[in-house]
C-alpha cells in the first residue's frame, strides 16, 4: 500500500508535466509574452517555424511606427555573433542587400557605399554604420562574409555583414522595398537599392539603381548628425 501512496503523487506530477509540455497547448501562454533576442553567446539559432501558436510580439525597444528595427529578424554577423538590427539604433545606417558570389551588380553597390563613406566628414564618420545583408544564406556563411569583408577592405566596426534565415531576409527586403528572386544559374536577380536609415531606423532616403545620385546623397548626409 505504501508503494501506491508514492506512485500517486508521481503520476499526478507526470500528467501535469505532459499537459504543459504538450504541443498545441501554447495558447495558454500569456499573450503579452515578449520574444527577445539576446546577444549572449556566439551560437546562431534558427527560428523554429514549427513552434505553433506562440505569441509573436514585436521586439519592443521604443521604436517608432516606421522603424525597420521593428523587425523580429535574427541575424549573424561576419564574426559569427548574433546581431539584432536594433543594435544600429542611434547610428546613421547605410544599408544594402547583396550576395557574396555576385559578379555583376553587387561589387558596384559595395563600391558605391565606399564612395558614400568617403564623402562623410571625418568628425561624423563614427556616427555611421555600413551594413550589407546577404540574400544568399545557403552560401554566405559568416566565414564567407568575413573573407568578403577582408577582400573588399570593409573594416569593423564601421562595416557589418549579416546573414539570416530566408524568412527574415524576405521580411527585411519587404520593409525596404528590395526585390530579389533566385534564378536557375544559382545566382539572384535583384534590384539595386542603397537605403539610408536615421538614428531611429527610419528610411530617409533610398538610391534605386546602379547610378548613385550624389546630390541627394550629400543632401541626406548634411541632414544627419
Amino acid at each position, binding site marked *: 500500500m505504501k508503494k*501506491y501512496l508514492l*506512485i*500517486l503523487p508521481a*503520476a*499526478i506530477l507526470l*500528467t501535469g508535466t*505532459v*499537459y504543459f509540455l*504538450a504541443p*498545441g*497547448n501554447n*495558447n*495558454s501562454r500569456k*499573450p*503579452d509574452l515578449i520574444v527577445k533576442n539576446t546577444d549572449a553567446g556566439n551560437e546562431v539559432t534558427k527560428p523554429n*517555424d*514549427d*513552434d*505553433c*501558436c*506562440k*505569441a*509573436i*510580439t*514585436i521586439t519592443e525597444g521604443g521604436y517608432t*511606427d*516606421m*522603424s*525597420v528595427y*521593428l523587425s523580429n529578424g535574427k541575424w549573424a554577423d561576419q564574426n559569427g555573433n548574433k546581431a539584432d538590427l536594433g543594435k544600429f539604433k542611434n547610428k546613421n545606417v547605410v544599408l544594402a542587400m547583396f550576395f557574396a558570389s555576385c559578379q555583376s551588380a553587387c561589387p558596384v553597390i559595395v563600391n558605391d557605399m565606399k564612395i558614400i563613406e568617403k564623402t562623410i566628414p571625418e568628425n561624423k564618420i563614427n556616427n555611421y554604420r555600413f551594413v550589407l545583408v546577404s540574400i544568399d544564406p545557403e552560401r554566405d556563411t559568416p566565414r564567407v562574409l568575413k573573407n568578403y569583408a577582408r577582400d573588399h577592405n570593409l573594416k569593423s566596426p564601421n562595416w557589418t555583414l549579416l546573414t539570416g534565415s530566408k*524568412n527574415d531576409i*524576405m*521580411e527585411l527586403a*519587404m*520593409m525596404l*522595398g528590395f*526585390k*530579389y*528572386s533566385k*534564378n*536557375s*544559374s544559382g*545566382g539572384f*536577380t*535583384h*534590384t539595386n537599392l542603397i537605403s539610408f536609415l536615421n538614428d531611429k531606423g527610419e528610411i530617409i532616403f533610398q538610391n534605386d539603381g546602379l547610378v548613385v545620385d550624389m546630390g541627394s546623397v550629400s543632401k541626406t548626409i548634411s541632414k544627419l548628425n
Partner: protein
Amino acid sequence: MKFFLTILITSFTLLANAQNHENAKASITKMVLIKGGYYKPLFKKNGQSEREFVNSFYIDIHAVTNEQFLRFVKANPDWSRSKVKKIFADGSYLKDWQSDFNPGENVNPSAPVTYVSWFAAKAYCSWAGKRLPTMAEWELVAMAGKNSPGPNKDKKFNERLIRWYSAGLPQRLNKVMSGEKNYWGAYDMFGLIREWTFDFNTTNINGTAICGGGSAGATDLTNYPAFLRYGFNSCLSANSDLGNLGFRCAKDTK
C-alpha cells in the same frame, strides 16, 4: 490498487479532453498534400529556365477566415487594428472590422479575412506553425482543374476567370469553401479573393513595371488571367491592405 488505477486513467482522460479543447481553440485549417511538379512561370526571369520544379508541400484547403484571424489578433494584440505598426500595415488594416477584437455584424466570420497586409499574413502563418506559400507553389495549386492537376486549358474556365478578375469587389464576401474544390482538394483558388504569396513581388524585377497589365517577356500569351494576377501583384507593397486580398498558409513536407 484498483482505486489508484482508476484515478490515473481518469486523470489521463481528462487531460486528453483538455488537449482536444486546446486544438479546437487553435482551429488549424485542414491541409492537403500537393505533389511536387513543374510550374511554368508566365514571365521568364533573367537566366531562368522555362520550367521551375516545385517540391511537394502542404497547403490549407481554404483561406484564413475572419474568425480564425480574430483568434490570432486576440493572442497577439500587437496585430490589432489600433496597435499595428505602420511599417507592417497601412491605414486600411482590418478596416471592415467594427473594432480591435470584434469583426462586427457586417463581416461574415466564415468569410476570408481581407484588409490584411503581407506582414500580418506572414505573422499569422508563423503563429499557426506554417508559412506563406511561394508564388510558384500557389500557381501550381491554382493551375489544377476539377479532375486533373492541370494545367487547366478549359476555355469556359478561363472565361469565367477573366470575368471574375475584371469584376469589382462584392458587397459582402462569401464564406470559404462555398465554391468547388479542385483536383488537390483546395477550395476557392479563384472566385472569392486574391491571395498573398511569400514572394509576390518577384515576377518582373528589373523589367518595366507591369502594374495593371502589359506583356513584355511573357512566355504564354494565352494566359490572360495570369497576366491580371501578376499585374495586380506588382502594384502591391507588403504593407498594403485591400478588401479583396487575403491569404492561406502552406507547410513543408519535411
